[in-house]
């Protein structure tokens, strides 16, 4: 019999078990770590066709988010502004700057500026901007501190667990409506328990956790 099974095969079961555990463990850890938007999307900072800085416009100059994203309170999506909105100021400010050539061309001809979309929920997710910003969910919750960004960077995962975190406990994140577009607002100590819970009750906020809330 020793001719058929050499001596080393005595250790084969142990090798299979130990090897399998190590390989399986590393592969599982790798998939868990990498195959999620936390890895795949967070940090995405594409080069935009026009080097628009939110830090300059929103933070230094103090423009409200809604000066440009003027449809966000009425619409399910937050619009990219028309080039004519840029030209409200840039018909005078930096009016001949080559960096703004695309914007001027767009305003004159209607040819869109090819902005690169960064935050892209899957098409089977029906996220509604208006219902969130009108009920105390700030831009900063999902988009991060955009008002401090020179280049917009995907800073939150926007995966399903990210959404559910808030849907399961809205009082923890909700804020008064007048602070929704103030991205620097910090909730006072213990706000979630008192003020947050009150807003959830007053506004009758029932975010829901069933599939059909977001998937239709």
């Amino acid at each position, binding site marked *: 019999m020793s001719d058929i099974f050499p001596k080393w095969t005595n250790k084969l079961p142990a090798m299979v078990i130990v090897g399998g555990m190590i390989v399986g463990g590393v592969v599982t850890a790798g998939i868990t770590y990498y195959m999620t938007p936390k890895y795949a999307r967070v940090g995405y*900072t594409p080069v935009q066709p026009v080097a628009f800085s939110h830090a300059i416009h929103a933070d230094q100059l103090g423009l409200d988010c809604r000066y440009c994203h003027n449809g966000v309170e009425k619409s399910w999506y937050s619009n990219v502004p028309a080039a004519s909105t840029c030209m409200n*100021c840039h018909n005078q400010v930096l009016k001949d700057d080559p960096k703004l050539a695309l914007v001027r061309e767009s305003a004159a001809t209607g040819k869109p500026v090819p902005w690169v979309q960064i935050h892209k929920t899957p098409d089977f997710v029906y996220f509604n901007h208006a219902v969130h910003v009108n009920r105390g969910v700030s831009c900063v919750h999902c988009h991060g501190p955009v008002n401090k960004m020179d280049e917009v960077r995907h800073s939150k995962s926007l995966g399903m667990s990210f959404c559910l975190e808030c849907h399961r406990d809205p009082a923890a994140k909700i804020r008064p409506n007048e602070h929704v577009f103030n991205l620097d607002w910090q909730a006072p100590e213990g706000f979630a328990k008192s003020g947050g819970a009150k807003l959830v009750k007053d506004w009758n906020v029932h975010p829901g956790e069933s599939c059909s809330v977001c998937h239709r």
Partner: protein
Amino acid sequence: MRYFFAALFGFLLLALTVFGIAGRRGTDFRKPPLEIFDDMVRQAKLRPQVPNSFMADGRSSQAHVAGTVAQRIGDHGNDTWQGTAENTGMEPGKTNFVATIPVPVTAALMARGRERYNISCLPCHSATGDGNGITKKIGAMPVVANLLDKNAIIIPDGQVFHIIGQGKAPNMQGYAANIEINDRWAIVAYVRSLQRARFATLEEVPAADRATLK
């Protein structure tokens, strides 16, 4: 046994290489995120403001057909195509501006006007309306109208409405696309209150609030 350890070592080396190339979570990157099996994630349906090869001009969001207007915009219950004073700021059938705001001026309208003014007008005209907004402070716009000036006060409400929507040559562009009709009237009401406040006396301030002023 040697081969077993060699294979295991090789595998761990491979895993380490993958980690070395893929890096850690949250690292900045420029290229679009990799999407495997994206046929449900990116469906063949229209989404707003994205490129779309079906349309002749390549966009999914189409502009109005030339010469047409929207019948209604948002929850505004007024037929916006009709030439009423509310829609045009002018007396129906005439070209003179209405003297007073043709919608009911309520506390809610005033609050709305304040909010909308602070979004769209404040950057240039400043919080008080004196024209010393941030654009003038940084020297970007030398000429900004002072809304507390006599010229801005004597014009009829309808003309203020008209300027918000259609702009004022040569520098101010119209905000008709950005501010709905109702909101434009709200801003008119708020601008009027700023002008009134500029020339108010201490006696007109409620006694309880006087201490907060200098």
